[in-house]
């Protein structure tokens, strides 16, 4: 168990370090002159060499790449990702400022998405009507096919402008978060629902279900008591994809609905080529991803008795075969 734990934690730490290194290479080394990235392209030519040198020294670009890298890595280890070029505030503070808004949006959408996905899987498994099953099974592929930005604009048009039920932008009052929540929940629920439908169908065809039925259990009892319990766990294996969908969706949803958050901060940082902030956000996102996967890896064996037994026997094989590619 200790070996398993060390391996998993080590892997998570490696991912965070490597994403720091990768973004350093992309943002600080690849551009011919990183100072260029700090200025508006239109103003680049009007900048005097003295100012260039000054800025270069300020951000440490005049030092050898390796020294820059080690200095930045050392600072990052103490939680210092430098200061945002645009606002002049520490990167970490800029991220933490807008984090609550995004967390609220992401957690709310995730909850909504999970409920919707389970509803779809339960209906598809429970119903005896072919047409209803086909209809419900067509929903998840449609949910991942409609671009988030189009959904957002469609919802604004219908529910804000035509019906006037919810505000079209801003973050004042509880009603303002309804449309962003629903917009983000739809693409997030798609892959979860697809996985659950498949997993529910597989479990429903398994021998113990036949046994249950033979012992007189009703269809509803089987679906809720047997299938639901056994088929839900695999949804954890796509926690990574779900997280990616939430982040990507948040970028677009926060832009469309003009909400402050990590997504919009990312967009502003990229638009203004705020290199330290971009790096900070990418490392933050990748660290969150690593943490989520770590938690899944550690929690999964606790929930699945078969894996628990395997671990006790000393097997160090990775726990669930992760299906990273979006299932459909």
């Amino acid at each position: 168990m200790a070996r398993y734990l060390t391996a998993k934690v080590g892997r998570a730490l490696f991912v965070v370090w490597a994403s720091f290194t990768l973004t350093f290479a992309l943002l600080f080394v690849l551009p011919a002159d990183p100072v260029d990235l700090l200025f508006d392209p239109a103003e680049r030519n009007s900048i005097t060499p003295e100012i260039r040198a000054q800025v270069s020294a300020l951000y440490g670009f005049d030092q050898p790449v390796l020294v820059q890298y080690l200095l930045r890595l050392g600072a990052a280890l103490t939680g210092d990702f430098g200061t945002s070029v645009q606002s002049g505030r520490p990167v970490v503070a800029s991220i933490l400022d807008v984090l609550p808004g995004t967390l609220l949006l992401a957690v709310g959408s995730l909850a909504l998405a999970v409920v919707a996905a389970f509803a779809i899987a339960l209906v598809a498994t429970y119903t005896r009507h072919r047409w209803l099953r086909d209809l419900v099974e067509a929903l998840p592929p449609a949910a991942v096919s409609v671009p988030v930005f189009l959904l957002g604009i469609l919802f604004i048009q219908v529910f804000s402008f035509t019906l006037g039920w919810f505000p079209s932008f801003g973050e004042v009052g509880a009603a303002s978060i309804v449309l962003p929540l629903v917009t983000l929940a739809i693409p997030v629920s798609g892959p979860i629902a697809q996985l659950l439908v498949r997993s529910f169908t597989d479990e429903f065809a398994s021998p113990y279900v036949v046994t249950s039925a033979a012992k007189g259990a009703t269809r509803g009892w089987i679906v809720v008591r047997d299938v639901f319990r056994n088929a839900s766990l695999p949804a954890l294996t796509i926690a990574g994809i779900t997280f990616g969908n939430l982040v990507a969706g948040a970028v677009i949803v926060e832009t469309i609905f003009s909400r402050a958050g990590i997504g919009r901060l990312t967009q502003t940082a990229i638009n203004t080529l705020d290199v330290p902030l971009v790096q900070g956000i990418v490392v933050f996102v990748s660290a969150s991803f690593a943490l989520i996967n770590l938690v899944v890896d550690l929690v999964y064996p606790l929930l699945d008795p078969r894996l628990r037994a395997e671990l006790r026997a000393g097997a160090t094989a990775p726990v669930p075969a992760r299906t990273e590619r979006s299932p459909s």
Partner: protein
Amino acid sequence: MTIGTAPPPDVTVPVAAPPEPRRRPAVPPPGLVLSWLLVLLVVAWAVFPGLFTAHGPYAGDPALSFAPPSWEHPFGADQLGRDLFSRAVHGAGTTLTATLVAVLVAFGAGTVIGLAAGYAGGALDTTVMRVVDVLLSIPSLLLAMVIVSVLGYSTYNVALAVGIASIASFARVMRAETIRVTHTDYVEAAHGLGVSRWGVVAGHVLPNALGPVLALAALEFGTAVIAVASLGFLGYGAPPPEPEWGLLVAEGRDFVALYPWISLLPGTVLALVVIATHRISTSLRPNR
């Protein structure tokens, strides 16, 4: 052979017979036919835009400003009086080419990397898979945004960025398949017969490992269309006068209260294309 004493070995209690494979109907399902027709139509838009619309994508007629959809202008016109159907037709070229480039980059690089890692094994495999792990830990839209900010804003850089951001998932699938195929009897037999390593890789491993990767490529088309359009929508793709699909939706955003067709009709084309490619990729998947 005495009959009747020993129980016949192959008569056993039927324990959960494997589910019968869904029979393929002789006539393809209508949804699939529609999907193919739609994709072919949109590809035709991309190749011969002039055949489908008499209006230019850039020429605006002030008299038509905010004209609603009509027979002459099926998608209506935008604030500058540009025919939106024409812009959607011409935009197909930009968006679909970018998608194709993205998928080819991801497929090509991913296949080579996965094949090399899976076949060579050892330190190369470990290194490659750790890098893949890292790339997968950054959401691909975010990674593509970072790459495009370094490369500069343009449709081709968006295509490249989307492609690079999806290399990891292709490499992962290809590696798994390569490892599976490398351990089959026929590959070992080929080695035993003295076929060179390159001959084995090119003649046996690659063709047999490619199936699931091709299925992933088909699926990736839909995902890449969305990614390209999303980056276009956020303003990282083609500059404004260009008729790129994501940009078309973004341009109509400010007018959605009064003139919803400007955003929603080109957006609907985009969504239908993605739904169609998903439907097609499902039908191409081997086992289901």
